[in-house]
């Protein structure tokens, strides 16, 4: 794989480095040299390259060179380079991979990882005597920034490398990381930022995120405003010696900046873009079992025998699925077929960490033929010899799919091979659309986000724990973080007040302030105990409380841990019930404290609880392509016969909507009336839409009885016919007004969002399992706080945060809004005598799951009362 190095390579690479490449029979790749050049010039740089392109080494090369060339020092030195990875395992893996070149070139450089798993003594030593290169996670960085002495610890920092940016930038974790980068930049103004990312559609979004002085999102270019908390842009330095950075006024023109994206054309984003060479285009096939695609379903059970055959022919296959439930299911099915006893393993987020590590190690040693996995393997670690990626059920997004395909053959020059296995007919359309999008290299867009205020609250508290802060200076610093660029002073003051007193209209907590303003105008943490407690709760990941699944030992004690399940997962099970977990059938014995005790069971038909639907919504871009594919009848020829026939009958019996239209069908069935809307906006958005529609239908007097949603459509059924309704009025955008407000306030999703915000913002402590009362844990529910706060102070800061989160993350209101505005005046209504081909998949979902609207909670309780009578009669 040697590649001709660019002409300037000898100048860029010191002899020792050039020799190292040569000794391994390699040549530095152009993007690796380009990154070295950016390092020499002191430019912030974002490298976008597909996996397998030596991306991580490219990120580290400038630091390794600088460290190799530095003169000997008499006094201990501070941290030189900080590497941040979204995955703990990746930080550890990179530590290992970095050790090889350092050792082989005989460099005197120390590189150490620091994660939640790192031992206390090593962590302590790292604080006292930092390594040259520290590899860590955003959460550990947030913790380091909250320590007293953070400024001194980071003031020598020369470079920060953020890996897998595409996976973090558009999340609360990204918000927090960006705030901490701004903090680091303030501690070390000459700090150079390096970003590493997989291929994305619009690199300018990530460039802006990474920029220490982010330009406005709406483009515009022009000179950036000065100020920015005194953060100066590092400018190209003559002589290109190590770290000879010269601070230049931030409005200095930047000649080296370039961006290929139209949005960023001609605009200085403050971060230079380096593009790695694209690998060979992946070969994507769609697997059809006997040429047929089933009507409905999510598991692709019909095609499992063929999937097994494909695995047999491959060297090592990664089998991606979208949910843990699907992972367990596919794993069971494959082993049922596994007559050759191929080593097939399972990997998902609920398995015990040790078990996951074992699978990863076996994989790295090349001992496995296949791993069934969820998004836990989307990122990171280099596997070696995966030659096939199989996606069971729909890919949901082109970018995610490219990332997954990238897991195969970490050698760029070889084409990667992937197989999609659609589980139903709509998924067939989706697979075809994704296949075409990947071939055209068109990916999904990740919209830039506005920084979350609960995250900011946590950050402000961390800052106060590290050292007293001046509010104006901190405000300027915070606005240097891309997501908070447009933060108003009013909101910032609100956040500071919240951190201090809880921000309530009733000022009764003045005695209990967490941070206090001194006479010098600086805010500081109330006392060391408060700071300690805060430090135990940093981080922006909120995961549901987990229970350990363990084998039942003697005397009711817990034995070996098998994995973890989310709290609430087991509520549908009773002792004696069986379920599939970690690839085996288990019988529930009891739940004791935080342990779920189980024994192996031989049950062939386990009572298998659903593990929720697809976690990922269909991406907006892929949805558009699916709608387009459906509209272009000439295009149908690429589809299998039965799917084509399905579309043709749909066209003849009902209709095929145009690309921008919404098809709404109404028809009677049994003694019910149905309304199906094919919006292709993802289950989340459909659920929200269905909830809101049900409210309206109730008012319209048609007596809605229930609804069901999948990624492609929603169906509502009612007592009275719905074909006479004014559909334009029914689907009018105004449903996002009062109806949404009214529904949201009662919605359990708001409570879930509130809990997340309450934890991230520091209102309540993370592991808030309530007061210990005579030895028993009494669950202190954030729902109680939510209810009280909503009644007494409905405009409170934290409720605002929760509403924003619910609207964007949990219920996808933004997506519903875009859809409603897109289809305004473009609803195609088909009033039918009976169901249509399109409606079959969605109607088959009925009975599997039902989401109740309005007075749902009361209904659940009333039904339980009916059960009681049945119980009494038994």
């Amino acid at each position, binding site marked *: 794989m040697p590649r001709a190095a660019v002409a300037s390579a000898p100048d860029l690479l010191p002899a020792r480095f050039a020799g190292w490449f040569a000794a391994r029979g390699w040549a530095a790749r152009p993007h690796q040299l380009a990154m070295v050049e950016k390092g020499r010039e002191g430019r912030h740089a974002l490298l976008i390259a597909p996996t397998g392109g030596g991306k991580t080494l490219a990120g580290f090369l400038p630091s390794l060179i600088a460290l190799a060339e530095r003169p000997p020092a008499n006094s201990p030195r501070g941290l030189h380079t900080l590497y941040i990875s979204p995955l703990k395992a990746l930080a550890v893996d990179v530590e290992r991979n970095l050790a090889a070149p350092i050792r082989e070139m005989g460099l005197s450089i120390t590189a150490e990882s620091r994660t939640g798993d790192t031992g206390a003594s090593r962590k302590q030593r790292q604080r006292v005597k930092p390594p040259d290169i520290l590899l860590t996670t955003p959460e550990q960085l947030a913790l380091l920034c909250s320590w007293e002495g953070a400024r001194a610890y980071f003031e020598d920092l020369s470079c920060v490398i953020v890996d897998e940016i595409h996976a973090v930038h558009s999340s609360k974790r990204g918000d927090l990381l960006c705030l901490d980068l701004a903090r680091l930049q303030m501690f070390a103004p000459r700090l150079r930022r390096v970003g590493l990312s997989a291929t994305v559609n619009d690199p300018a979004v990530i460039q802006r995120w990474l920029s220490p002085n982010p330009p406005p999102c709406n483009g515009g270019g022009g000179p950036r405003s000065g100020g920015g908390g005194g953060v100066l842009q590092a400018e190209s330095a003559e002589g290109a010696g190590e770290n000879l950075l010269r601070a230049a006024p931030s409005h200095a023109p930047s000649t080296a900046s370039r961006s290929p994206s139209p949005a960023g054309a001609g605009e200085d984003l403050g971060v230079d873009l380096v593009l790695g060479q694209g690998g060979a285009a992946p070969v994507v096939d769609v697997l059809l079992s006997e040429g047929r695609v089933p009507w409905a379903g999510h598991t692709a059970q019909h095609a499992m025998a063929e999937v097994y055959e494909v695995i047999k022919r491959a060297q090592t296959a990664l089998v991606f699925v979208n949910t843990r439930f699907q992972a367990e299911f596919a794993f069971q099915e494959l082993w049922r077929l596994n007559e050759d006893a191929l080593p097939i393993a399972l990997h998902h987020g609920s398995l015990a960490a040790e078990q996951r590590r074992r699978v990863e190690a076996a994989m790295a040693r090349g001992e496995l033929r296949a791993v069934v996995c969820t998004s836990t393997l989307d990122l990171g670690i280099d596997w070696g010899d995966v030659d096939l990626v199989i996606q069971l059920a729909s890919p949901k997004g082109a970018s995610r799919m490219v990332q997954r395909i990238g897991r195969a053959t970490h050698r760029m020059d070889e084409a990667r091979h992937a197989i999609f296995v659609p589980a139903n007919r709509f998924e067939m359309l989706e697979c075809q659309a994704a296949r075409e999008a990947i071939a055209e290299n068109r990916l999904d867009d990740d919209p830039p986000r506005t920084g979350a205020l609960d995250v900011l609250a946590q950050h402000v508290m961390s800052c106060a724990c590290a050292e007293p802060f001046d509010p104006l200076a901190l405000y300027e610093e915070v606005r240097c973080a891309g997501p908070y660029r447009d933060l108003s002073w009013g909101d910032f003051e609100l956040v500071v007040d919240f951190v201090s*007193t*809880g921000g*309530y209209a*009733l000022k*009764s*907590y003045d*005695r*209990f302030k*967490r941070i206090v303003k001194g006479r010098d105008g600086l805010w500081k943490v*109330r006392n060391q*105990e*408060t700071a300690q*407690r805060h430090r135990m709760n940093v981080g922006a990941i909120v995961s549901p409380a987990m229970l350990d699944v363990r084998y039942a030992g003697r005397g009711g004690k817990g034995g070996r841990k098998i994995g973890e399940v989310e*709290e*609430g997962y*087991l*509520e*549908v099970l*009773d002792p004696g019930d069986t379920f599939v977990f970690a690839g085996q059938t288990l019988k529930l014995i009891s*739940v004791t404290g935080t342990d779920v005790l189980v024994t192996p069971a031989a049950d062939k038909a386990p009572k298998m609880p659903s593990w929720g639907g697809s976690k990922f919504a269909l991406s907006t871009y892929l949805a558009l392509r699916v709608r387009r594919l459906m509209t272009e009848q000439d295009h149908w020829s690429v589809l299998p016969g039965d799917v084509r026939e399905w579309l043709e009958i749909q066209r003849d019996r009902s209709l095929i909507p145009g690309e921008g239209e919404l098809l709404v069908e109404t028809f009677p069935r049994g003694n019910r009336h149905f309304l199906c809307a094919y919006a292709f906006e993802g289950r989340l958005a459909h659920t929200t839409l269905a909830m809101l529609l049900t409210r309206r239908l109730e008012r319209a007097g048609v007596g809605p009885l229930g609804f069901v949603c999948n990624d492609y459509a929603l169906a509502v059924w009612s007592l009275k016919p719905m074909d006479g309704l004014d559909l334009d009025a029914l689907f009018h955008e105004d449903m996002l007004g009062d109806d949404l407000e009214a529904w949201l306030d009662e919605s*359990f999703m708001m409570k879930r969002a509130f809990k997340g915000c309450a934890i991230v913002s520091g*209102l*309540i*402590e993370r592991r808030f399992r*309530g*007061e210990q009362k005579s030895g*028993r844990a*009494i*669950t*202190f*529910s954030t729902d*109680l*706080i939510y209810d*009280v*706060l909503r*009644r*007494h*102070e409905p405009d*409170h800061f934290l409720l605002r945060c929760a509403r924003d989160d619910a609207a964007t993350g949990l219920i996808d209101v933004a997506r519903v809004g875009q859809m409603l505005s897109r289809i305004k005046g473009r609803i195609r209504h088909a009033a039918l005598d009976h169901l249509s081909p399109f409606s079959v998949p969605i109607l088959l979902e009925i009975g599997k*799951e*039902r*989401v*109740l609207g309005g007075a*749902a*909670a*009361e*209904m*659940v*309780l*009333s*039904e*339980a*009362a009916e*059960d*009681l*009578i049945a*119980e*009494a*009669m*038994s």
Partner: protein
Amino acid sequence: MSAAEAHAFAYAFSPSPCGGLRVEVAGTRVMLRPCGGLWLEAERALIVSDLHLEKGSAYARRGQLLPPYDTAETLAVLEREIAVLNPALLVFLGDTFHDRWWEARIDPAGAARVRALTVGRQAVWVTGNHERDSVKTLPGEMADEIALAGLILRHEPLPGPAWGEVAGHLHPCAVVAGKGRSVRRRCFVTDGERLILPAFGAYAGGLNVRDAAFAGLFARPPLMGALGKDRVHAVGWRSVARD
């Protein structure tokens, strides 16, 4: 034969127009109120348990700034209940205040509202030993336990079966799983011999009735009276799930 008579384990209960649920405890007819209070109509006695007033400020003192509205919220519910029922006797079944330093933290308006609850009626503060100091400045009697209408009212249930006992302390909660979701609500728990009241306070957490703390208290699978919106729902043991 009614459903209730058909089975040895069946319970006699009947919904009341006010949303409450009538049950018998040790032969005494009582009303479980939707707010979580117990109403003895013949005695015109209202019994409430575990108000945990000033819990919010207790947490704030330790750095968790929960919304400071829990006392007002809890008192408002109780005041409404008193206005509707006009009880002659008001029994607080313990843990009325979250800790003994509540008086130092409660605002003057809240303190006045607490005192006003007992005006025009008899009040009894059933307390554990640790709680004596909390309520000694308040109007009304203090007692470890009281006997009323054939029932024994005490804060913490005695271990093992206890005929006619009405207690609080455990904060019972019922999780009822429906299709697609589940509901967790505070509840009364009774086996017809004894009754555990739900916690009344806005910030009082709940303990699942399937928790080991309830094991051994009941002679047979108990009946839950789950607090709904304006209604107490009768829920059978088989319908309640763990958390």
